[in-house]
Each structure stands twice: as structure tokens, then as C-alpha cells.
């Protein structure tokens, strides 16, 4: 079985982002970019399945500008076998990304597709589910455990209030939650090896996909600032403030 995973290029999660003064977006100049952390978990899960003999090949896809090759190399260093860059300068929105991925799925015929449950830039949480819909496949989102069986996968999902376990017919789309695994660090020899692994570059047009954005961002603003309050000296003073000033406890 082949496994297809995704690697979105996003602002590193440690970066404090800054909104541009002209409200056109977020400042991406000289900002550290990384693989979306949830995609890293997806890559790790795929590599572990390969190591366990459940898969023969792990293919990683990134959709975006030419610099996404960096994120593909990271994924290759973590153990993916080959990369596909769908290169475009367009502002890629989840529906368009899902359509591109659908075209890649049609070509590669993977037995399992693993994506992050959301990207930490747009926080949309849509792509995996949309891909599942377009490909007519089952989905198991927010996965915290994946077990591959014969023609099906049993997946434990994080839901409001606890966990739920479902089985999905393969091929299926799994999206990763935080507790699925803890991604490894790439070793230096693996980083060197990754440089020799192949990356195919195609365009959305090559795949016959219309990626024109449907949603226009009119402006991006910083959130309303929350003013810092006061420091209280003791628990007694705190309880007094909560009772008599804020009136939130009785």
C-alpha cells in the first residue's frame, strides 16, 4: 500500500505573527517557515506504518510556492520516500487544495491518505474532509490512534467530551490530532539522504484543476487588545474583588 501525506508550509508555531499595517495580511517577510505541526504528525504516522510493514511507500505532497520544496525535504528527511510539489503562486484555499490533492490521489492511488487536522495559519480544518468528499472516500478526522486492518482501518477520534472509535473502509482519509504520535527529529544522515530523494514538480493546470480563490480576504486586523488588569496581594483580596467588584462569584 502507498500512503499519501501532506506538508503545508506555514509560519513556525513559535513565531509571534504581526499584522501588516495596510491590513492586507500577516507579515511573512523573514519569518521562519515550517511544516504545519499537524502534517508532521501525519508524516510520522505514515513513516511508522511503513516501518511496521503496513505500507511500501510514503509520498508527500505540498501545494504552493516553489519554497514549499523546503518542507518537502523536511518530510523526506523524516522518512517519506518521494515528494510532489504542486507549484502555484495563487492564494490556495482549502477547496482548491482538496481538488489538487484529489487529482494526485487519482494518479497515485494510495491506500491511505493522512493529513493534519488543521493548518496553524488559516485554522480552517477543511482540506482532509473536502478531499474525502471529492474522492468519495471515508474519513476519520482528529485521529488519536490508527490501526490498519485488512481493507479497513480502525481509528480512535478525539470528540467533544472524549473519544470515539470508528472503522473506515480503505482507501480513506485520516486527519491527525495532537496525541496520535510524537514526531521524531530528522537525523543528519537522513537530512543528507533526503537531498537525493526525488521531488516531482507539477502545476494545478497540469492536473487540470481550477484553483481560482472563491473567498476574498478584505482585511486582516489584530484582535482587540485585552487590557492588563491589576495584581492582588493575597487570596483574600482576590476573593473580595471577585465577590464585590467583578461580582462573578457569590
Amino acid at each position, binding site marked *: 500500500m502507498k500512503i499519501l501525506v501532506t506538508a503545508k508550509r506555514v509560519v513556525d*508555531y513559535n513565531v509571534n505573527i504581526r499584522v501588516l499595517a495596510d491590513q492586507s495580511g500577516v507579515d511573512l517577510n523573514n519569518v521562519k517557515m515550517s511544516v504545519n505541526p499537524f502534517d508532521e504528525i501525519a508524516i510520522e504516522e505514515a513513516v511508522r506504518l511503513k516501518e511496521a510493514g503496513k505500507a511500501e511507500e510514503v509520498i508527500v505532497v505540498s501545494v504552493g510556492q516553489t519554497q514549499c520544496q523546503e518542507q518537502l525535504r523536511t518530510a523526506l528527511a523524516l522518512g517519506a520516500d518521494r515528494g510532489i510539489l504542486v507549484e502555484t503562486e495563487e492564494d490556495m484555499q482549502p*477547496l482548491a487544495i482538496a481538488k489538487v490533492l484529489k487529482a494526485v490521489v487519482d494518479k497515485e492511488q494510495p491506500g491511505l491518505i493522512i493529513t493534519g487536522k488543521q493548518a496553524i495559519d*488559516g485554522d480552517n480544518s477543511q482540506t482532509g474532509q*473536502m478531499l474525502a*468528499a471529492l474522492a468519495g472516500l471515508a474519513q476519520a478526522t482528529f485521529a488519536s490512534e490508527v490501526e490498519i486492518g485488512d481493507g479497513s482501518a480502525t481509528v480512535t*477520534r478525539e470528540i467533544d467530551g472524549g*473519544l470515539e472509535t470508528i472503522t473506515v473502509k480503505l482507501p480513506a482519509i485520516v486527519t491527525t490530532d495532537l496525541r496520535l504520535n510524537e514526531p521524531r527529529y530528522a537525523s543528519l544522515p537522513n537530512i543528507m539522504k533526503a537531498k537525493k530523494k526525488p521531488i516531482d514538480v507539477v502545476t494545478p493546470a497540469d492536473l487540470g484543476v481550477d484553483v481560482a480563490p472563491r473567498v476574498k480576504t478584505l482585511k486582516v486586523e489584530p484582535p482587540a487588545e485585552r487590557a492588563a488588569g491589576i495584581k492582588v496581594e493575597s487570596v483574600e483580596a482576590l476573593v473580595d474583588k471577585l465577590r464585590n467588584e*467583578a461580582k462573578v462569584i457569590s
Partner: protein
Amino acid sequence: MSILVVAEHDQNSVKVPTRVAIAAAKLLGDDIHLLVAGQGCQGAADAAASIEGVQKVLLAESEAYSHNLAEELASLVVSLAGGYSHILTATTTSGKNYMPRVAALLDVSQISDIISVESDDTFKRPIYAGNAIATVQSSDSVKVLTVRGTAFDPVAEQGGSAVIESVEAPAVMGVSEWLREDVVELERPELTAASIIVSGGRGMQNGDNFQMLESVADKLGAAIGASRAAVDAGFVPNDMQVGQTGKIVAPDLYIAVGISGAIQHLAGMKDSKVIVAINKDEDAPIFQVADYGLVADLFKAVPELDSQL
């Protein structure tokens, strides 16, 4: 054009986040239809019919919907989508699961987790863990939206007198199957519905110490939350997590104990009305958003707080 809201329910009642989604729908139009899908959910349909602002309840009874499987729910919503200008649901794990599927099958975008309605095609939503707010405009014929549970005041449970109409269930896809659920029975209010939340972070040091918070929470009728650091350290289960990748909450009072205040955590709680921070590190970022900060060792302060309530 009418507006379709997809309800989340427990067979007998409609959950609060759905009433929040209806509040957002009311800003878009008056003819609001509420879809109740499940098995044995006449009780929920009756409750739905009396919700303020609901004109019609669509009841889809089928075993296929009893566990909210995304594939089946999405094909049901798509089968009903004709004639609606907007399709909304709450941003819950269930809504997040099936709604993008609905959008893709309709070949339209979804606008996730809206926090305001600017016009019938323009909405505000948080990006980058709430560190930026985007105003976005959709050019799609149908607007598919999920609504943040803390962004609008829920409409009243009573006041409506909608008709209930049964709808046909489309053919079952049958590609997934529900096996079991491991849901913690809460003696306390749910995090997303609680008016007071007591949350613990890495400073709690271990899971046993959360008992201190339980005692305080019991006295306040509060829910208990946790930061991702506390969840990652294995102190408490993930369904207690408040933050960018956990639950988004906005209670009247949020008490953060031993939480430093990483931006991912603040993203989940900074809309709370009153924030209290108890932390021994006076430079902890949590104090920058706290209305009342107490620089103290939590192992002394929390028992003291407990005794004074």
C-alpha cells in the same frame, strides 16, 4: 431565500452551540430551518420547534445518523441544500467533521468558525490562533459556515412554534462504521457551556494535584480545563484542553492556575469576561490578559482560595 442550520442534539434536547449558530443565522435572514438528524430524536425535534427564531424543523430519522458519521450526515445535508442561501452549524468536533464535506460536495468554500456577520456574504473569523482577525467575502452561491460557540449570544430555548416536517434520508454510503464511544461522564458543567472555569497548567506538576482544582470547582459550580502543556505532560485527558487546538471558551470567570499563557492557550480563553491568573512567575504572559493576577505559589494559594469560598 431560507437558511438551514444543522442541529447538534442528544436525542431529547438541542445543544447550546446550535442556539448560538441560530443567533448568527438570524443576522442573515428570518426563514430559518433547523435540521435534526438522528435516531429516536422526536424529543430533540420537539425541543427544536420551540427555539426562538426557528420557522421549520426538518426531522431525518435513520440509524445512519445515530452516531453523526460524517459521510452520511453530509449526504443528507447536501440532499436538502437546494433553496438555501446559507447552511450553518456550530464549530464543534461534529460540525468540523461533516461540514467541509458538505461544502466540497456543493463545490463551494466553507468559512470556518465565524465570529461576526458583516453582511450576507462577508464574515469575520480568527486566523493564526486568534492572533489576527480576517474579514472575508465569499463569492459562492451558497455560503457554508461554521459558527464559533462563544461569538454570539444563544437564542432563547423557548418562543418559537415551528412546524416539524419529516424528510427522506438519501441512500446510505456505508463506508464507515461506528464502534464505540469513551465519553467521560461529567459531574460538572461542560467546558463550552460553563459560566465559570478553573484551569490548570504545567505548574500543577501532576494529575493528582488537579484534585485541588476539583474542590474549588465544586464550590463554584465550575468546569475544569487545562492547558496543552498539562495535557501533553499526561496530567489530564485531551478533552479538557482549552486553546487553539482544544476548546474555545468564554465563561464569565476563568481562573488560570499554574498556566504561563502561551499564545495557543490564550487563543482559547481570552474572550472570557473576567480572567484570574495564579502563577508564581510574575513575568508569565498570562498576567498580561488577567483582570486579577496573584503572584503566588499555587500549592498555597489554591487551598487558601478553597477555604475562603
